């Protein structure tokens, strides 16, 4: 009895969560104005792809999609590379003041991101990065959170594996690329997913550093679109679907590793 109750509550909550999402997709296929009729419709009378066509051709959404893709992939790639190198070094290398340095870096996590926005903006401006992909990629290349995550995971790798690789004749870089990275795969997928989704969905920072409209990312472009086409619900929904789909695909594809990664990071074997 209790089991059925739990299941029914779960189903109700699931439907409640999924309904807006479902309506977003369905409304994006409705013809103009159909989404605002009373009583509201759950499904379109006929599938209308014109909003997607409009977005991708007239409203230049393809360009924004490309911007978002380049930036998100760039940030993900570099952050995985640099964070894993730093995390591994903090976990396994012996160097002077390692603990103190790590604590200092960790302590910087309590500073809210908004505080550093202006100084980072000014630095990037002096470097001439404003309105380029670098304006988002460079500040996102390393994060304390990422370093911390990788370090905690790398701590669980036995030293003897690294020593065995040394005896086998591996250089430091070979150890990193051929032993450490493959072993860190679950945590790398997790961090990659976090980073990709975080960058893809980020709104504030791209809004600040991308003043040229051709450099907008999807969320910024979408917000811009809203102010212009506020009454065109169906078009907005189509834009939202295009924004969400890539993240959704990445998440679903990597989901099983992601869960493994979170579990494995927390429990030391």
């Amino acid at each position: 009895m209790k089991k059925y109750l739990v299941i029914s509550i779960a189903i109700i909550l699931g439907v409640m969560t999924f309904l807006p999402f479902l309506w977003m997709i369905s409304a994006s296929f409705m013809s103009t104005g159909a989404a605002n009729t009373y009583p509201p419709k759950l499904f379109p009378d006929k599938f209308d792809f014109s909003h997607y066509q409009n977005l991708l051709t007239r409203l230049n959404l393809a360009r924004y999609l490309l911007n978002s893709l380049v930036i998100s992939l760039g940030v993900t790639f570099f952050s995985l590379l640099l964070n894993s190198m730093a995390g591994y070094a903090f976990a396994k290398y012996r160097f002077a003041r390692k603990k103190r340095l790590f604590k200092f870096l960790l302590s910087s996590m309590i500073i809210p991101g908004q505080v550093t926005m202006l100084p980072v903006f000014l630095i990037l401006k002096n470097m001439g990065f404003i309105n380029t992909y670098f304006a988002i990629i460079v500040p996102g290349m390393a994060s304390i959170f990422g370093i911390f995550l990788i370090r905690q995971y790398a701590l669980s790798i036995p030293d003897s594996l690294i020593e065995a690789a040394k005896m086998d004749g591996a250089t430091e870089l070979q150890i990193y690329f051929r032993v450490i990275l493959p072993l860190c795969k679950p945590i790398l997928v997790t961090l990659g997913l976090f980073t990709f989704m975080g960058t893809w969905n980020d709104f504030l920072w791209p809004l600040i550093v991308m003043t040229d409209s051709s450099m907008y990312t999807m969320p910024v472009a979408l917000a811009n679109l809203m102010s212009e086409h506020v009454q065109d619900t169906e078009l907005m929904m189509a834009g939202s679907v295009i924004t969400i789909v890539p993240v959704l695909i990445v998440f679903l594809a990597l989901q099983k590793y992601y869960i493994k990664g979170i579990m494995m990071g927390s429990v030391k074997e």
Partner: protein
Amino acid sequence: MAAVKLINVSKVYDGKNKVVHEVDLEINDKEFVVLVGPSGCGKSTTLRMIAGLEEISEGEIFIDGKLVNNVQSKDRDIAMVFQNYALYPHMTVFDNMAFGLKLRKFSKNEITERVNHAAKILDMEHLLDRKPKQLSGGQRQRVAVGRAIVRKPKVFLFDEPLSNLDAKLRVQMRAEITRLHQRLEATTIYVTHDQTEAMTMGDRIVVLKDGIVQQVDSPMNLYNRPANKFVAGFIGSPAINFIDGKIVKENGLAFISREKLISFQLSPDNSEKLIPYIGRDVTLGIRPEEFRIESKGGYKINVEVDLVEQLGSDVYLHFNLEGIPFIGRVKPTMDFRSRKEFELYFGSEMIHLFDSAEGKKIN
């Protein structure tokens, strides 16, 4: 294959904590040397210095006549088998064994040939496609050994390779490693805390305590002629029995224990060495198997046995003398459980006398 030479090698941590003290050791080509001692005695540290995984604080290490103090592990041409196997979990058995060869840019054919050959020697050809997690402990250890032998290194290092295995498998792998050594004739340095492993495997054994070499000798010499009380106590199972007493002059020299329960005439052969110890505190060591039930000459002690352990081939008799627990190991010639009082005999040829203060052997 190569000889390994350690000259005055020390290891100091943080500038003050000395864990290995001036080790001098010469390991000959093709020799199987075992470093043995209780945990924390510096045996693993010594091995890791030879491997190049630990910096050498003082002294010099030569491999094949070449000073290697500043040579990286990978360039020392040695291979090591770790206690926890240290197999790469993401690689198959084949790749685990081939990894070192790939890094050293061997041709594909050569790699395949060597790995297959090693797999054949170790009887694990059917495991080559498996990942380490699909293997049992013994199989993993075999892969770790295989990874070492494919490289055909000058020296093999083993760091307590059997301590993660269960007792039965340990005995089996022990024999396998010994056979492998006979087959490959490779210089081998083997670290263990298990004296049985040391005794059964080593051509020579290095006994370490607190980072200091106590004795370097063949297994039988260590057993029969221990240099000091520590070696005598460490080697042998069940352990040697110790009892404190004095040497007195009494128609020649005699040993008398503190409460005079053991007193016997010492053999005149050793008189000269023992004369300086007259009147001083000494410790008598008698190995359990030196006790006999029948008199064939020798000295008699009356004991009250409080525990009898029957092992089939032997019987362990536990008794107390002057408050010190003793073990006698005798053949099962009678029913030992039927009574408590026994007369035990021992000869004076195989007894050991140690200076109580310094622990060194004096007879």
